[in-house]
């Protein structure tokens, strides 16, 4: 069975029409992982026996009515899974087995999904290329000399390579959107407060968004239906029950108005990226949308704001890793983790708090207000995700600041707490280029609608890498 063309819809259809069984599907994915993942290094743990067992149980039940019945999923190794190693891709948690499931994991299981394994990523979600993993970098399936983006490197590579139709991921400063756009996959960063963070190892508590990577926009909406909503364990969740995100997904975008933030398309973009982006804008226009230029003046300070708030929260969130109740000693932290802990400890410290953390929180308000103002005029914002094409592994490794600057176009959505959907937008030099669609808080339904129209018109998702 060729897994590279499967989507949630086609798998469920196949089950319900008895074209194939859950064991058939799960086996096919597992075989492909066995054959090709040694070249990509997207998985840290593969739960083969359990997955086959669950598939067999699903088949004998004969019941495929659940929304994700028999659907294979893989989880970024930052999601706690009961009884399964949860490493955060770090040597500190190399052998840590979680004693509980994250809410998202529980919900996906309850929807019928079958876990194939845990995916590689930058340790503690610190990174934009996957190179900060203590288990070796993940390679881009489109060209293994290149990064698949990070921090959700394994999630993007696995979906792109046909190892799993769904991969959970997290986005704190672009960690879903960047790898999705580097691998020709769909990456959703939901609104902060839409999906529970309970059980997901915290990176930066006020910025972490819990999302997922899929092949298509419809698949992304189906998964959000399963994961969204309050759970009584994460106090930052909104209580309103979310809608069915697939309900209006095919309604098209005629009459919608989109803004292009001028700060996101300035000279900083590489020619390859700006060429792809221009084509995107034309495509949206021909689908009936009106495109205008808008400005988000304070986003110029996005990176500076982000790289104060995020490390500050990181330094506090990583304090519990002391090797006493679980895990290994703090000396096992990798270099990037240590760097961020040091930076964050400094920016929160006495005498510096006002100048750094407090100031950043104020600029955060200004950035948030910029977005709110703009959304009074337009339905959504369209922008590139990365100023450049994917870079070669090892290229940016020695300059942390240069690595941080690759987040310039993605961090502001996290700062403002708004949702953003990354969708494939084309190729340049054999490498994928994605774009992002940003909307006001809790506007995921509209983002899917826009993404779906664009995706169906351009059909980039039909292209798959040769492994």
């Amino acid at each position: 069975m060729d897994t590279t063309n499967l989507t949630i819809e086609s798998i469920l259809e196949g089950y319900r029409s008895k074209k194939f069984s859950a064991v058939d599907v799960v086996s096919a994915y597992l075989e492909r992982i066995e054959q090709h993942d040694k070249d990509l290094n997207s998985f840290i743990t593969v739960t083969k026996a359990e997955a086959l067992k669950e598939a067999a149980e699903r088949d004998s039940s004969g019941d495929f009515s659940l929304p994700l019945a028999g659907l294979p999923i893989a989880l970024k190794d930052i999601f706690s899974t009961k009884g399964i190693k949860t490493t955060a891709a770090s040597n500190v948690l190399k052998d840590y087995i979680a004693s509980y499931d994250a809410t998202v994991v529980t919900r996906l299981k309850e929807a019928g999904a079958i876990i194939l394994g845990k995916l590689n990523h930058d340790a503690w979600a610190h990174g934009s290329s996957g190179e900060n993993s203590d288990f070796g970098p993940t390679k881009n399936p489109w060209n293994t000399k290149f990064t698949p983006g990070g921090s959700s490197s394994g999630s993007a590579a696995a979906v792109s390579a046909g190892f799993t139709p769904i991969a959970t991921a997290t986005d704190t400063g672009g960690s879903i959107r960047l790898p999705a756009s580097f691998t020709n996959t769909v990456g959703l960063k939901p609104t902060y407060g839409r999906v529970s963070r309970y059980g997901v190892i915290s990176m930066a508590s006020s910025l972490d968004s819990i999302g997922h990577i899929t092949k298509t926009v419809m698949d992304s909406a189906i998964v959000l239906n399963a994961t969204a909503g309050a759970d009584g364990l994460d106090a930052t969740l909104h209580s309103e029950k979310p809608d069915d995100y697939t309900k209006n997904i095919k309604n098209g975008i005629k009459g919608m108005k989109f803004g292009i933030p001028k700060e996101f398309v300035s000279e900083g973009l590489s020619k390859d990226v700006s060429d792809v982006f221009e084509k995107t804008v034309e495509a949206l226009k021909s689908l009936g949308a009106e495109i205008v230029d808008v400005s988000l003046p304070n986003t110029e300070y996005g990176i500076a704001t982000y790289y104060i708030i995020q490390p500050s929260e990181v330094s506090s969130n990583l304090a519990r890793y002391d090797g006493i109740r679980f895990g290994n000693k703090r000396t096992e932290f990798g270099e990037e983790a240590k760097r961020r802990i040091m930076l964050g400890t400094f920016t929160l410290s006495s005498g510096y708090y006002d100048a750094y953390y407090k100031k950043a929180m104020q600029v955060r308000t200004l950035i948030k207000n910029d977005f709110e103002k703009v959304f009074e005029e337009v339905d959504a914002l369209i922008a590139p995700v990365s100023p450049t094409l994917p870079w070669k592994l090892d290229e940016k490794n020695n300059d942390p600041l240069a690595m941080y600057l690759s987040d310039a176009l993605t961090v502001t959505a996290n700062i403002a707490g708004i949702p953003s959907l990354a969708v494939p937008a084309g190729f340049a030099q054999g490498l994928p280029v994605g774009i992002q669609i940003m909307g006001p808080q809790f506007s995921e339904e509209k983002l899917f609608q826009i993404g779906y129209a664009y995706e169906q018109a351009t059909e980039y998702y039909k292209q798959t890498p040769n492994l």
Partner: protein
Amino acid sequence: MKYTPIIGLETHVELKTASKMFCGCSAEYFGKAPNSHTCPVCLGLPGALPFPNKTAIDWCVMIALALNCEINKFSKFDRKNYFYPDLSKGYQISQYDLPFGKDGSITVSKQKGSNETKMIRIRRVHMEEDTGKLTHAIVNGEKVSLIDFNRSGVPLVEIVTEPDFENEHQVVEYLQKLQKIVRYLGVSNADMEKGDMRLEPNISLQKEGETELPNYKVEVKNINSFRFVDKAIKFEIIRQTELLEKGERPDQETRGWNETKNATVSQRLKEEANDYRYFPEPDIPPIEFNQTEIDALKNALPELPDEKQERFEEKFNLPSYDAEILTRDKALADYFEEAVKVGNEHNITPKQIANTIINKKTNTEEILPAKLIEMISSESKTEEINPAELNKVISEVVSENPKAVADYKAGKEPILQFLIGQTMRKLGKKADLTVIKSAILEALK
């Protein structure tokens, strides 16, 4: 050279909620098997998140209101970051600059037995979570520390005073009042021995005549009874006085009360104050109160001990000694008022009831108020005694007890009670004591 003690007090009260502050684990940890009341949240496991307990917050506000505090309409939790093995997350969720309550007060008497009062200002009342418990042991010959996280996450209310105390009596009275208040509110057992009320005084001495606060202060830990509060403060005042008289400034440090040595002992000198790097807790949205909610909580407060004591003194005409004892415990005070109600219908005065309860140490848990009134009634019912019968009995008693009579006549006044008692026994009836007494006195003339 005279020195004035300058004492401030930090008290932690453990709330007796059913569940912990930020998770659903049972908060009743005392005496349970170690690490049997924990979950990912209070154990600080990867990925766990806090979810505040509404009852704990309401109770903290009630304590603040009972202490005459102003309630902050906008308040939040903050992270206090430091490393210690009993602190599972590496930070404690507490409150920094916007505590629930601020600027309150408690009034105490200035000296023991004095009518003059001293107002102790309360700087803040805030909410935080307790840490796990560390005990020290020797395992396989090695000195180790053992950690039990059952207590981790139990709700604590911290009450901080200004350095207004002038002596150990004021401190003890403040603590007794605070204990009574939280027990009245039903929010804590406030049992010092069990650790649900903990305190740390900070003590320094000011040279007489100086208005500036001293440039050092000594914190004392490990005090777990009222007796030790008194002793520890007395000890510190003497210790610091001796140093100051020698021209030395006492070290700014933390000391522990050592009951075997009957002294405070220096713990590691903490030269630098810990940099806690407080920042607003991002996992918990802020708390906002409007005036209506605050008023509702205030109205829901039961009558507090001081008010109740005053009311008992006025309404029931009781001396403050009696009123204080009867209002020490809310349940007892309620019992007393119930008894007074029944007593009213049987001509038994509140004073009679008070006397019985206080002197006879009535078991108020077993004897219902109505029964108590019955008992008092029958004891005080007197029967008519025939004077002739009385005199006859008295003559018998006098002739049967010549030594007693002689002793009494020699000046031993208390013997009279014995003679009255003998008379009553022989009479076999409840007679008016005053009548019997005067009849005996007549006979002994």
